[in-house]
């Protein structure tokens, strides 16, 4: 009774979910960086060049 299909399915799902979560964190980080840059730019514009 080897059931290799089940073993393959289990490990595939483990890595898919972990990579999915890592990708979610990466995507969130990129979005937050963009927001932070926008806020910094708008602050810079308001304060002027001096």
């Amino acid at each position, binding site marked *: 009774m080897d059931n290799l299909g089940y073993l393959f399915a289990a490990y595939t799902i483990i890595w898919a979910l972990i990579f999915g979560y890592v990708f979610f*964190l990466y995507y969130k980080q990129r979005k937050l960086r963009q927001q932070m840059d926008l806020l910094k730019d708008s602050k810079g514009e308001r304060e002027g060049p001096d």
Partner: protein
Amino acid sequence: MNGRSALRHYILVGLGFALMVAALYMVFIYVPTDKNMGAVQRIFYFHVPLAWIAFLAFFVVFVCSILYLTKRDMKWDVIASASAEVGVVFTSLVLITGSIWAKAAWGIWWTWDARLTATLVLWFTYVAYLLVRHYVAEDSQRARLGAVLGIVGFIDVPIVALAIMLWRTQHPGALIFEGGLVTSMLITLLVCIIAFTVLYIILVVQSTRLKNMEADIRNIKNNRPD
């Protein structure tokens, strides 16, 4: 991220990667195939560490929730929510891999056994914790509610852990403590537990960093003169 914390981060990620490669090597090449269950028993080496680290994650939520309620420092609330998030991911994997293993071993995907049901309740509890946090807008109210849920929710962790002793369950007993594993299986399990602990730390640190960044953005927006 300053220079030193970036270096620490890269060292941790490198260590996590090396440990995970070692864990996979041991699971698929080093450890002998189980005589009774065959290759499918190899699910055990990731299923058990995932469950233990999920318990650890919810224990961190519990401790940080108490610390938040006593000190009222948002730092603890941020760590608690990051740990709960990772705990939910790991518990989801415990339920999925457990179900796949059950199908191979018992011929069914699911049974309302005490251990399985208590684990499902644990998953629902912390999904509810994350949903409550998502829908409460005010920072201190969200942290307070989250802390109460984080403390109450932890009650289910010892129930899950002790279910195999308290009730007659279909789930296998604590093989590790009953001496049911040969040395190579024990070593493999240990390496997998260390690898998943490092992965847990990396994910919580990263998630905490993002939650702090989110809070900074909220503060800048709230204090901005329109």
